Protein backbone atom coordinates (compact mmCIF):
# COMPACT_ATOMS: atom_id res chain seq x y z
CA UNK A 1 0.00 0.00 0.00
CA UNK A 2 1.58 3.26 -1.08
CA UNK A 3 0.18 5.11 1.90
CA UNK A 4 2.12 2.83 4.25
CA UNK A 5 5.10 4.99 3.43
CA UNK A 6 3.38 7.71 5.47
CA UNK A 7 2.77 5.47 8.49
CA UNK A 8 4.87 4.81 11.55
CA UNK A 9 4.14 1.13 11.16
CA UNK A 10 5.88 0.13 14.36
CA UNK A 11 2.95 1.50 16.36
CA UNK A 12 0.38 -0.67 14.58
CA UNK A 13 -2.11 -2.11 15.21
CA UNK A 14 -3.32 1.29 16.41
CA UNK A 15 -4.99 1.93 19.77
CA UNK A 16 -8.47 2.74 18.46
CA UNK A 17 -11.36 0.35 19.17
CA UNK A 18 -12.56 -2.16 16.56
CA UNK A 19 -14.75 -0.32 14.04
CA UNK A 20 -13.71 3.18 15.16
CA UNK A 21 -14.17 5.61 12.30
CA UNK A 22 -10.95 7.45 13.12
CA UNK A 23 -8.95 4.76 11.32
CA UNK A 24 -11.01 5.39 8.19
CA UNK A 25 -10.19 9.09 8.42
CA UNK A 26 -6.49 8.25 8.80
CA UNK A 27 -6.67 5.81 5.90
CA UNK A 28 -8.18 8.32 3.49
CA UNK A 29 -6.38 11.40 4.72
CA UNK A 30 -3.13 9.65 3.82
CA UNK A 31 -4.53 8.89 0.38
CA UNK A 32 -5.16 12.61 -0.12
CA UNK A 33 -1.59 13.41 0.83
CA UNK A 34 -0.24 10.66 -1.39
CA UNK A 35 -2.32 11.84 -4.35
CA UNK A 36 -1.11 15.39 -3.85
CA UNK A 37 2.45 14.08 -3.89
CA UNK A 38 3.44 16.01 -0.79
CA UNK A 39 6.77 15.26 0.80
CA UNK A 40 6.73 14.06 4.38
CA UNK A 41 9.12 16.79 5.40
CA UNK A 42 6.75 19.57 4.39
CA UNK A 43 3.84 18.39 6.52
CA UNK A 44 3.29 19.20 10.15
CA UNK A 45 0.43 17.50 11.92
CA UNK A 46 -0.67 19.17 15.14
CA UNK A 47 -3.23 17.55 17.41
CA UNK A 48 -4.72 18.07 20.85
CA UNK A 49 -6.05 15.47 23.28
CA UNK A 50 -8.57 12.69 22.84
CA UNK A 51 -8.96 9.59 20.70
CA UNK A 52 -8.73 11.66 17.53
CA UNK A 53 -5.52 13.38 18.56
CA UNK A 54 -3.64 10.10 18.65
CA UNK A 55 -3.70 10.18 14.86
CA UNK A 56 -0.57 12.33 14.86
CA UNK A 57 1.49 9.58 16.47
CA UNK A 58 0.77 7.22 13.60
CA UNK A 59 1.94 9.37 10.71
CA UNK A 60 5.52 9.91 9.62
CA UNK A 61 5.38 13.71 9.41
CA UNK A 62 6.59 16.35 11.82
CA UNK A 63 4.10 15.68 14.57
CA UNK A 64 3.05 17.79 17.54
CA UNK A 65 0.70 16.16 20.04
CA UNK A 66 -0.27 19.04 22.31
CA UNK A 67 -2.78 19.78 25.07
CA UNK A 68 -6.54 19.57 25.11
CA UNK A 69 -8.27 22.09 22.86
CA UNK A 70 -5.25 24.15 21.94
CA UNK A 71 -3.99 22.38 18.82
CA UNK A 72 -4.99 25.25 16.53
CA UNK A 73 -3.14 27.77 18.69
CA UNK A 74 0.05 25.69 18.53
CA UNK A 75 -0.54 25.20 14.82
CA UNK A 76 -0.86 28.96 14.35
CA UNK A 77 2.64 29.36 15.80
CA UNK A 78 4.02 26.64 13.55
CA UNK A 79 2.36 28.04 10.43
CA UNK A 80 3.32 31.65 11.03
CA UNK A 81 6.80 30.48 12.01
CA UNK A 82 7.29 28.65 8.70
CA UNK A 83 4.46 29.41 6.27
CA UNK A 84 5.82 27.10 3.58
CA UNK A 85 4.83 24.07 5.68
CA UNK A 86 1.50 22.33 5.22
CA UNK A 87 -0.18 22.31 8.61
CA UNK A 88 -2.93 19.79 9.23
CA UNK A 89 -4.85 19.74 12.50
CA UNK A 90 -7.11 16.77 13.20
CA UNK A 91 -9.34 17.28 16.23
CA UNK A 92 -12.22 15.60 17.96
CA UNK A 93 -15.55 17.38 18.40
CA UNK A 94 -14.95 18.10 22.08
CA UNK A 95 -11.32 19.05 21.50
CA UNK A 96 -12.17 21.43 18.64
CA UNK A 97 -15.43 22.92 19.83
CA UNK A 98 -15.80 22.68 23.60
CA UNK A 99 -12.44 23.38 25.21
CA UNK A 100 -11.00 24.52 21.88
CA UNK A 101 -13.99 26.52 20.63
CA UNK A 102 -12.36 29.88 21.12
CA UNK A 103 -9.19 28.93 19.24
CA UNK A 104 -11.33 27.39 16.51
CA UNK A 105 -13.30 30.54 15.74
CA UNK A 106 -10.25 32.76 15.94
CA UNK A 107 -8.14 30.59 13.64
CA UNK A 108 -11.07 30.75 11.21
CA UNK A 109 -11.35 34.52 11.64
CA UNK A 110 -7.67 35.01 10.79
CA UNK A 111 -8.04 32.82 7.73
CA UNK A 112 -4.64 31.32 8.40
CA UNK A 113 -3.74 28.57 5.94
CA UNK A 114 -4.36 25.55 8.16
CA UNK A 115 -6.42 22.45 7.37
CA UNK A 116 -8.64 21.69 10.36
CA UNK A 117 -10.26 18.28 10.38
CA UNK A 118 -13.06 17.81 12.88
CA UNK A 119 -13.53 14.11 13.49
CA UNK A 120 -17.05 14.31 14.83
CA UNK A 121 -18.18 11.23 16.73
CA UNK A 122 -20.49 13.22 19.02
CA UNK A 123 -18.91 11.88 22.20
CA UNK A 124 -15.84 12.01 24.43
CA UNK A 125 -14.39 8.58 23.78
CA UNK A 126 -11.06 8.68 25.59
CA UNK A 127 -12.72 9.42 28.92
CA UNK A 128 -15.45 6.87 28.38
CA UNK A 129 -18.55 8.33 26.76
CA UNK A 130 -19.51 11.78 28.04
CA UNK A 131 -21.68 14.05 25.88
CA UNK A 132 -19.94 16.63 23.71
CA UNK A 133 -21.15 19.95 22.28
CA UNK A 134 -22.09 18.02 19.14
CA UNK A 135 -24.00 15.15 20.80
CA UNK A 136 -27.27 16.99 20.48
CA UNK A 137 -30.55 17.00 22.35
CA UNK A 138 -31.97 13.66 23.37
CA UNK A 139 -28.76 11.65 23.07
CA UNK A 140 -27.50 9.46 25.87
CA UNK A 141 -24.09 9.65 27.49
CA UNK A 142 -22.51 8.77 30.82
CA UNK A 143 -22.93 12.40 31.87
CA UNK A 144 -26.44 12.55 30.41
CA UNK A 145 -27.86 9.34 31.88
CA UNK A 146 -31.49 10.48 31.56
CA UNK A 147 -31.10 12.28 28.23
CA UNK A 148 -29.02 15.15 26.94
CA UNK A 149 -30.65 18.59 27.18
CA UNK A 150 -27.60 20.40 25.73
CA UNK A 151 -28.14 21.80 22.25
CA UNK A 152 -25.52 21.06 19.62
CA UNK A 153 -24.38 23.44 16.91
CA UNK A 154 -23.63 23.12 13.25
CA UNK A 155 -19.85 23.08 12.77
CA UNK A 156 -20.11 24.14 9.15
CA UNK A 157 -22.33 27.14 9.88
CA UNK A 158 -20.13 28.13 12.81
CA UNK A 159 -16.98 27.92 10.68
CA UNK A 160 -18.51 29.96 7.91
CA UNK A 161 -19.72 32.64 10.31
CA UNK A 162 -16.30 32.75 11.97
CA UNK A 163 -14.54 33.35 8.66
CA UNK A 164 -13.31 29.98 7.41
CA UNK A 165 -12.91 30.19 3.64
CA UNK A 166 -13.32 26.49 2.92
CA UNK A 167 -15.93 24.39 4.71
CA UNK A 168 -16.83 20.82 3.82
CA UNK A 169 -18.47 17.80 5.37
CA UNK A 170 -18.50 14.09 4.73
CA UNK A 171 -18.67 10.80 6.60
CA UNK A 172 -16.64 7.66 7.04
CA UNK A 173 -19.13 5.82 4.85
CA UNK A 174 -18.13 8.13 2.01
CA UNK A 175 -14.46 7.21 2.14
CA UNK A 176 -13.61 8.39 -1.38
CA UNK A 177 -15.16 11.73 -0.60
CA UNK A 178 -12.89 12.06 2.44
CA UNK A 179 -9.87 11.76 0.17
CA UNK A 180 -11.29 14.15 -2.37
CA UNK A 181 -12.32 16.82 0.15
CA UNK A 182 -9.12 16.72 2.20
CA UNK A 183 -7.14 17.13 -1.01
CA UNK A 184 -9.06 20.26 -1.85
CA UNK A 185 -8.86 21.51 1.71
CA UNK A 186 -5.08 21.20 1.73
CA UNK A 187 -4.82 22.97 -1.62
CA UNK A 188 -7.12 25.77 -0.47
CA UNK A 189 -5.21 28.85 0.62
CA UNK A 190 -6.82 29.90 3.87
CA UNK A 191 -8.47 28.30 6.85
CA UNK A 192 -10.20 25.06 5.81
CA UNK A 193 -12.60 23.09 7.94
CA UNK A 194 -13.49 19.50 7.08
CA UNK A 195 -16.07 17.92 9.32
CA UNK A 196 -16.07 14.14 9.09
CA UNK A 197 -18.84 12.22 10.82
CA UNK A 198 -17.05 9.25 12.30
CA UNK A 199 -18.53 6.43 14.31
CA UNK A 200 -17.75 5.60 17.90
CA UNK A 201 -19.42 2.20 18.21
CA UNK A 202 -17.97 1.68 21.68
CA UNK A 203 -19.61 4.65 23.38
CA UNK A 204 -21.92 6.69 21.18
CA UNK A 205 -23.22 3.68 19.30
CA UNK A 206 -23.78 1.57 22.37
CA UNK A 207 -25.36 4.33 24.47
CA UNK A 208 -27.64 5.41 21.64
CA UNK A 209 -28.54 1.96 20.30
CA UNK A 210 -27.06 2.56 16.87
CA UNK A 211 -25.67 -0.94 16.58
CA UNK A 212 -22.37 -2.02 15.06
CA UNK A 213 -19.81 0.16 13.32
CA UNK A 214 -21.21 -0.99 9.96
CA UNK A 215 -24.71 -0.09 11.07
CA UNK A 216 -23.61 3.36 12.16
CA UNK A 217 -22.05 3.85 8.73
CA UNK A 218 -25.31 2.76 7.13
CA UNK A 219 -26.94 5.58 9.09
CA UNK A 220 -24.45 8.04 7.57
CA UNK A 221 -25.54 6.82 4.16
CA UNK A 222 -29.21 7.11 5.04
CA UNK A 223 -29.07 10.45 6.88
CA UNK A 224 -26.86 12.46 4.54
CA UNK A 225 -27.19 13.77 1.02
CA UNK A 226 -24.97 15.63 -1.45
CA UNK A 227 -25.24 19.39 -1.15
CA UNK A 228 -28.00 20.91 -3.24
CA UNK A 229 -29.78 17.62 -3.80
CA UNK A 230 -33.47 17.16 -4.46
CA UNK A 231 -33.56 14.82 -1.48
CA UNK A 232 -32.70 17.68 0.89
CA UNK A 233 -35.66 19.69 -0.32
CA UNK A 234 -37.95 16.76 0.28
CA UNK A 235 -36.42 15.92 3.65
CA UNK A 236 -34.83 18.92 5.41
CA UNK A 237 -33.60 16.62 8.20
CA UNK A 238 -30.91 15.23 5.90
CA UNK A 239 -27.35 16.39 6.57
CA UNK A 240 -25.60 17.83 3.54
CA UNK A 241 -22.25 16.50 2.37
CA UNK A 242 -19.69 18.05 0.05
CA UNK A 243 -18.00 21.41 -0.17
CA UNK A 244 -20.43 23.69 1.60
CA UNK A 245 -18.53 26.94 1.33
CA UNK A 246 -15.49 28.10 -0.60
CA UNK A 247 -14.37 31.68 -1.07
CA UNK A 248 -11.12 33.49 -1.65
CA UNK A 249 -9.93 35.92 1.00
CA UNK A 250 -6.58 37.32 2.10
CA UNK A 251 -4.61 34.69 3.98
CA UNK A 252 -3.01 35.63 7.31
CA UNK A 253 0.63 34.66 6.64
CA UNK A 254 0.59 36.35 3.22
CA UNK A 255 -0.84 39.48 4.80
CA UNK A 256 1.81 39.43 7.50
CA UNK A 257 4.51 39.18 4.86
CA UNK A 258 3.14 42.41 3.40
CA UNK A 259 3.35 43.98 6.86
CA UNK A 260 6.99 42.97 7.10
CA UNK A 261 7.72 44.40 3.66
CA UNK A 262 6.08 47.70 4.55
CA UNK A 263 7.73 47.85 7.97
CA UNK A 264 11.20 47.15 6.57
CA UNK A 265 10.77 49.76 3.88
CA UNK A 266 9.64 52.37 6.39
CA UNK A 267 12.73 51.84 8.48
Amino acid at each position, binding site marked *: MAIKDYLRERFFPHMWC*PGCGHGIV*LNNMLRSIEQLGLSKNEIVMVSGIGCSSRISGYVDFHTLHTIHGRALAFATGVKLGLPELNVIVPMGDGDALAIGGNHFIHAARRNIDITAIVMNNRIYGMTGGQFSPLSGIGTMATTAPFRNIDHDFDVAELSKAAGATFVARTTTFHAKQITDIIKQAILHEGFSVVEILTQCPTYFGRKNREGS*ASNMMELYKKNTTPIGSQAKQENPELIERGILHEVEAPEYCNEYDKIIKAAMKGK
Partner: protein
Amino acid sequence: MAKPKLKEHIINREWCKGCGICVHFCPKKVLELDDTDKVVAARPQDCICCKLCELRCPDLAIEVIVERQ
Protein backbone atom coordinates in the same frame (compact mmCIF):
# COMPACT_ATOMS: atom_id res chain seq x y z
CA MET B 1 -10.75 -0.08 -20.69
CA ALA B 2 -10.70 -3.62 -19.45
CA LYS B 3 -12.15 -4.44 -16.07
CA PRO B 4 -9.48 -4.65 -13.37
CA LYS B 5 -8.60 -8.23 -12.50
CA LEU B 6 -7.86 -9.30 -8.98
CA LYS B 7 -4.40 -10.54 -8.18
CA GLU B 8 -4.87 -10.99 -4.44
CA HIS B 9 -6.19 -9.56 -1.20
CA ILE B 10 -3.36 -8.78 1.16
CA ILE B 11 -4.76 -8.99 4.67
CA ASN B 12 -2.69 -7.94 7.63
CA ARG B 13 -3.96 -10.24 10.35
CA GLU B 14 -1.90 -8.45 12.97
CA TRP B 15 -3.67 -5.18 12.29
CA CYS B 16 -7.20 -6.45 11.59
CA LYS B 17 -9.45 -6.04 14.63
CA GLY B 18 -12.38 -7.91 13.09
CA CYS B 19 -14.85 -5.02 13.10
CA GLY B 20 -16.60 -6.48 10.07
CA ILE B 21 -16.98 -3.22 8.13
CA CYS B 22 -15.35 -4.68 5.01
CA VAL B 23 -17.49 -7.81 5.23
CA HIS B 24 -20.67 -5.78 5.65
CA PHE B 25 -20.09 -3.42 2.76
CA CYS B 26 -18.55 -5.78 0.19
CA PRO B 27 -20.98 -5.67 -2.75
CA LYS B 28 -20.09 -9.22 -3.81
CA LYS B 29 -19.81 -10.83 -0.38
CA VAL B 30 -16.21 -11.82 -1.03
CA LEU B 31 -15.04 -11.36 2.54
CA GLU B 32 -15.79 -13.20 5.78
CA LEU B 33 -14.58 -13.18 9.35
CA ASP B 34 -12.91 -16.44 10.34
CA ASP B 35 -13.07 -18.27 13.68
CA THR B 36 -10.56 -15.85 15.18
CA ASP B 37 -12.55 -12.81 13.99
CA LYS B 38 -10.00 -11.87 11.35
CA VAL B 39 -11.06 -11.11 7.81
CA VAL B 40 -10.38 -13.62 5.03
CA ALA B 41 -11.17 -13.50 1.31
CA ALA B 42 -13.55 -16.46 1.16
CA ARG B 43 -14.66 -15.95 -2.46
CA PRO B 44 -11.89 -14.03 -4.21
CA GLN B 45 -13.19 -15.13 -7.63
CA ASP B 46 -16.22 -12.84 -7.12
CA CYS B 47 -14.12 -9.73 -6.33
CA ILE B 48 -14.76 -6.80 -8.69
CA CYS B 49 -11.80 -4.81 -7.30
CA CYS B 50 -13.94 -1.87 -6.19
CA LYS B 51 -11.51 -1.46 -3.26
CA LEU B 52 -14.26 -0.24 -0.93
CA CYS B 53 -12.98 -2.68 1.70
CA GLU B 54 -9.53 -1.15 1.47
CA LEU B 55 -10.80 2.43 1.68
CA ARG B 56 -13.19 1.76 4.54
CA CYS B 57 -10.87 -0.39 6.63
CA PRO B 58 -10.26 1.49 9.91
CA ASP B 59 -7.26 -0.71 10.63
CA LEU B 60 -5.53 -0.21 7.25
CA ALA B 61 -5.37 -3.99 7.23
CA ILE B 62 -6.67 -4.91 3.80
CA GLU B 63 -5.32 -4.19 0.37
CA VAL B 64 -6.72 -5.23 -2.98
CA ILE B 65 -3.95 -5.96 -5.47
CA VAL B 66 -4.95 -5.76 -9.11
CA GLU B 67 -3.24 -7.58 -12.01
CA ARG B 68 -1.22 -5.30 -14.23
CA GLN B 69 -3.01 -4.89 -17.52
